[in-house]
């Protein structure tokens, strides 16, 4: 039957285009070791391997899974571009995300597993806690930051050109010249 949303849905605090999103859940009794090992395995999947920067969900800046209180509790903490509550339904209809969710949250209390999306939604909304404070040290969406990195790499390449100093002399280049000294 249609899911009427249980639990409360707090949109999360936001800084510029980005909003915080955190889940806190209890680990099922005795499942701490299995969950820890599932997280170790997760760390070895594409997107989560050291050096990878390609998570399945491209609108999050970072994700962390924290086991605490002697592995009896789990926190999932991330930052999302856009108001995440607007994307709730999308999230639940995305296969890869759900599969990832499933391998971790199956060890936690209140999680009944797929494919009952209604129950999953209630589970997430119950576990979600809005931050009391949230700050960021740079603005911009993941898309913009990636673009900025590409642009900087290109700029460095230009600076490596033997004629770079000559080329940047044009008045129109002043803003770039200001950034060229270090």
């Amino acid at each position, binding site marked *: *039957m*249609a*899911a*009427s949303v249980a639990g409360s849905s707090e949109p999360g605090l936001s800084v*510029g*285009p980005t909003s915080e999103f955190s889940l806190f859940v209890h680990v099922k009794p005795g499942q701490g070791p299995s969950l820890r090992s599932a997280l170790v395995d997760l760390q070895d999947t594409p997107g989560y391997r050291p050096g990878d920067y390609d*998570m*399945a*969900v*491209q*609108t*999050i800046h970072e994700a962390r899974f924290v086991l605490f209180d002697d592995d009896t509790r789990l926190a999932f903490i991330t930052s*999302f*571009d*856009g*108001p995440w509550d*607007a*994307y709730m*339904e*999308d*999230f*639940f*209809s*995305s296969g*890869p*995300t759900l599969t990832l969710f499933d391998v971790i949250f199956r060890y936690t209390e209140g999680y009944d597993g797929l494919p009952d*999306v*209604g129950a999953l939604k209630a589970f997430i909304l119950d576990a979600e806690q809005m931050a009391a404070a949230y700050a960021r040290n740079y603005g911009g*969406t*993941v*898309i*913009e930051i990636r*673009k900025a990195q590409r642009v900087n790499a290109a700029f460095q390449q230009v600076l490596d050109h033997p004629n770079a100093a000559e080329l940047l002399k044009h008045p129109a280049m002043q803003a770039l010249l200001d950034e060229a000294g270090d």
Partner: protein
Amino acid sequence: MSAATDPHLELDDIQAGALFERPSPYVGTYLMLRIANRADGRELVRRLHRIATTSRVSTGQGSTSITVGFTYHGLAALGVPQASLESFAPEFREGMAARAAVLGDVAASGPEHWEQPLGSSEVHVAIAVLCSDTDRLQAAAAQAREARRELPGVVVVWRQDCYQLATGRTSFGFKDGIGQPAVEGSGRPSTSPRERPLKAGEIVLGYPDETGELPPMPTPEVLGRNGTYVAFLKLHTKVAAYRRYLHDRATSRAEEDLLGAKMVGRWQSGAPLALAPERDDPELGGDAKRNNDFLFADDPRGFKCPLGAHARRANPRDSMDEVGSVDVRLHRMIRRGTSYGPALPEGMLEDDGADRGIVFVFAGAHLKRQFEFVKTQWLNDGIFIGAPLEKDPLVGPNDESSGFTIPQRPIRRRLQDLPPFVVTRGGDYFFAPGLRAMRWLAELGT
């Protein structure tokens, strides 16, 4: 529940407005009514129930289509029990005026400037009459008058006529109403060979939707089933300001047309930039088999069609497939817009003071994740395309502080200081019930 297993749409119970194209060309009238007396209101509904067009009937040439919807206040005025009223979608219960700040309808578009009594508790019933010619409209108007005959407790509080301009285009000069999803079981083929028909529950209540579940449906079932939510907006278009804006930034008519097409995502003829990136192709624009047969994934940076173009924002098609957090199929909608007011004469750059624009009509099962999502996340914002400072260049709530990026080689073009080209003159959320539900409403004994 049987609904979950029954894929057959009850076409003779579903009003035609949601599932069928309006006639083209068309003339029509939107009437808003207030129910001052409950018994008269119910009698009105009884009569309307007999003339409302169902989805069994063809609405092509030589046709009349009458669609009826109710606001929350309208349902309350008819005596719908409180528990039932509370089972409607929260946005519907609040009404569009209460949602205006969220929807970006502020400043000149704010409810305090809306045409009276739009957005107020005085609007109870909407009747949309669309016909293929004026004779039929007169006949339908007579029917509608007949439906109100000797019902002093039902008052017409607002009226808007609409008609297709001679050009077949809307006021800015563009062909409209092309991009439209098909609905499973409606018997109407998709306009895009590349888009699977939507599950019926995306548009009509009582059937499974794209998530595999039944959309939340008002109770009792007889009231909710086969109904659809409608968002109705009167959108005034500032055509002279739009033309001047392009004129001031272009050195030729061809360049103006190109800038205009980049803003919309289609040329005036309807030809999509994705298939005709360089120049208009009227033959393509007019060819219903080809004009919606495209995707965007081959153009991720928007060199053909900018990521910020209106139609690409409103339906990014496969652009979002890699993002992992967006399912475009959850944000589709049926649009039943019409055009009102006279065309601004060709070449005129000064405002003549006439009221012209479109009556934007959304139909769908999910006000929040369809209409409100598209308006707030995709049209009024640019986070999803990595341009948080940009809004839809044509219909976004621009205030001369934001711009529009047109990707091109060697250097992108950026239009600055976009003013608002569209002003909301009023609107509301309606529920267009099935015919059985209308009978139920007429026979309420409370």
